[in-house]
């Protein structure tokens, strides 16, 4: 039969300060854990949402990103004429030959340069990305040095607002529109006409061909057609997978860093909890003896002290999580070192992250409380009662 939980709670309330300090240590750990996990998930979500299940990306075999890929004009034409590509509203095929290059731009209010993705688009490009909405101005006209900037770029980079001009590839580029692509990687890109960009950058080849499949179930056929054609040294991936892979290195790094920090910090928090619980036990030895004399079993004592430690963990975990949840209001912009370009994304708090964070706190409570609780439960009654 268990000692009422109110006993554990009241004991915690009685030593408010130590409870708060112990819970505070745990809150810090949970905050770090939750924050890094939220960051990794935000990144993954952004890049996964960048891709569409309906689309396939064709790049050079083994190219880790579009920037490092090349598709010749002949290869691009072969891809374009392949079966299984959806038809657009105006009748054309929904396949876009694109070129992706990195340029260095200066962030507003600083003189720090950052790499930005610039994408040369063709007529089908916009139709392939349903997330992309023009919020200001118009699309760039083919054959001109006009560009449109993603909302995140327009906000953060010098000269990227509508009506401003950017200088790169020895030319002046006029920003004629701003587009928003939600929480996707496209919001961190600049788009211009593919042919103009190829000319300006003196690049004779495309980077990729994006196509919308008539039926997403046909992906395997398209993949096989692309990869078995001896004229093509290309590979096809679902767009969702393509972007998920781009987030992998960075999100894995974030997760490993998060886990390492959590493990290191939690050792401190566990030791803190252990010290607190040992002193709680030491201060209440005769109380423990009394409870045992009254007929409470060893297991009840164990449970009561573990409950104290777990409740401390729960308090700390909740505090850390609430703190971390405020991070959702922030957007992080950083270098995705897989593509070497700037990418803006937010902290993403999922139910599972919340659950895992609270579990981390409870595990700390359990680990810190177990030995002291065992000590309390194993005490001999007469010895416990003699210590007043």
């Amino acid at each position, binding site marked *: *039969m*268990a*000692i*009422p939980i*109110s*006993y554990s709670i*009241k*004991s915690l*309330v*009685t030593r408010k300060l130590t409870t708060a300090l112990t819970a505070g240590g745990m809150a810090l750990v949970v905050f770090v854990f939750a924050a890094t996990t939220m960051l990794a998930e935000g990144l993954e979500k952004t890049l996964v949402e960048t891709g569409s299940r309906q689309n396939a990306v064709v790049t050079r075999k083994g190219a880790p990103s579009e920037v490092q890929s090349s598709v010749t004009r002949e290869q691009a034409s072969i891809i374009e004429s392949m079966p299984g590509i959806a038809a657009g509203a105006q009748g054309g095929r929904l396949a876009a030959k694109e070129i992706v290059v990195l340029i260095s731009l200066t962030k507003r209010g600083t003189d720090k340069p950052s790499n930005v993705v610039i994408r040369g688009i063709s007529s089908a490009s916009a139709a392939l990305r349903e997330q992309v909405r023009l919020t200001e101005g118009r699309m760039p006209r083919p054959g001109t040095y006009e560009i449109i900037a993603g909302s995140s770029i327009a906000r953060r980079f010098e000269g990227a607002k509508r009506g401003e001009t950017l200088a790169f590839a020895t030319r002046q580029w006029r920003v004629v529109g701003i587009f928003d692509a939600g929480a996707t990687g496209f919001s961190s890109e600049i788009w211009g006409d593919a042919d103009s960009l190829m000319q300006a950058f003196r690049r004779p080849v495309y980077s990729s061909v994006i196509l919308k499949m008539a039926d997403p179930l046909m992906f395997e056929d398209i993949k096989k057609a692309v990869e078995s054609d001896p004229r093509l040294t290309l590979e096809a991936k679902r767009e969702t997978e393509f972007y998920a892979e781009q987030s992998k290195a960075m999100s894995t790094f974030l997760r490993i860093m998060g886990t390492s920090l959590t493990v290191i910090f939690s050792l401190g928090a566990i030791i803190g909890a252990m010290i607190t619980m040992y002193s709680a036990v030491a201060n209440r030895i*005769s*109380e423990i*003896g*009394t*409870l*045992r*004399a*009254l*007929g*409470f*079993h*060893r297991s009840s004592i164990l449970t009561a002290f573990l409950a104290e430690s777990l409740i401390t963990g729960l308090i700390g975990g909740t505090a850390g999580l609430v703190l971390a949840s405020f991070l959702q209001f922030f957007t992080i912009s950083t270098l995705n070192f897989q593509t070497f370009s700037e990418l803006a994304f937010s902290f993403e708090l999922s139910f599972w992250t919340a659950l895992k964070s609270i579990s981390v706190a409870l595990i700390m409570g359990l680990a810190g409380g177990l030995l002291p609780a065992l000590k309390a439960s194993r005490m*001999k*009654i*007469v010895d416990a*009662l003699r210590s*007043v």
Partner: protein
Amino acid sequence: MSAPFIGIRGLSKSYMRGERALPVLKNINLDIAEGEFLALMGPSGSGKSTLLNLIAGIDRADEGSIDIEGVDITTLGEASLTAWRSDHVGFIFQFYNLIPVLTALENVELPLVLKEMSRKERKERASLLLGLVGLSERVDHYPGQLSGGEQQRVAIARAMVTDPSILVADEPTGDLDRASAEEVLNLMRRVNEEFGKVVIMVTHDPRAAEKAHVIRHLEKGVLNAAPH
């Protein structure tokens, strides 16, 4: 003659003091009748508390048997002995040993948590007992807000709340002034007379011992001959 309420035979216990075993109780034989109020007296270190703790089932003997209401409690395992205590023994300690974070009512209610009883029943019974010791007004007070005498009365209510057959008290008045001690002793006397509880009390105080029916003396772990 029917079997005594408590029958102790050949009870011995020693503590290890470094390498050497230090005998604390030597071959104790003691009968306690139903309804008896027994006072255990003797010099400090004579083993009074040790004997009381053995009878109350919170310590283990080296040798001998303790029959209580037909059960030899020295044969019980840890868990059954714990359950046995909760059914049969009420404890009164020198320093009251109330749980400081619980109110008077919650303290008295605590042993009932181990019984099959609804929360409402528990509260009712605990209030009844607090009334019995004259502390109806103090149910919501914490031990720290009560005088020593009041705390000891709460402790008596707690000891009585499960309706045990035996009450053990180790120097229950050792920490009290004369007047409070008198109150506590009268209460114990009443518990013995009105409710028929066997009371075993360890005390140094001859005036406390006067309240008992039987006084037995321990000397260096040996029980003096019973008075006739």
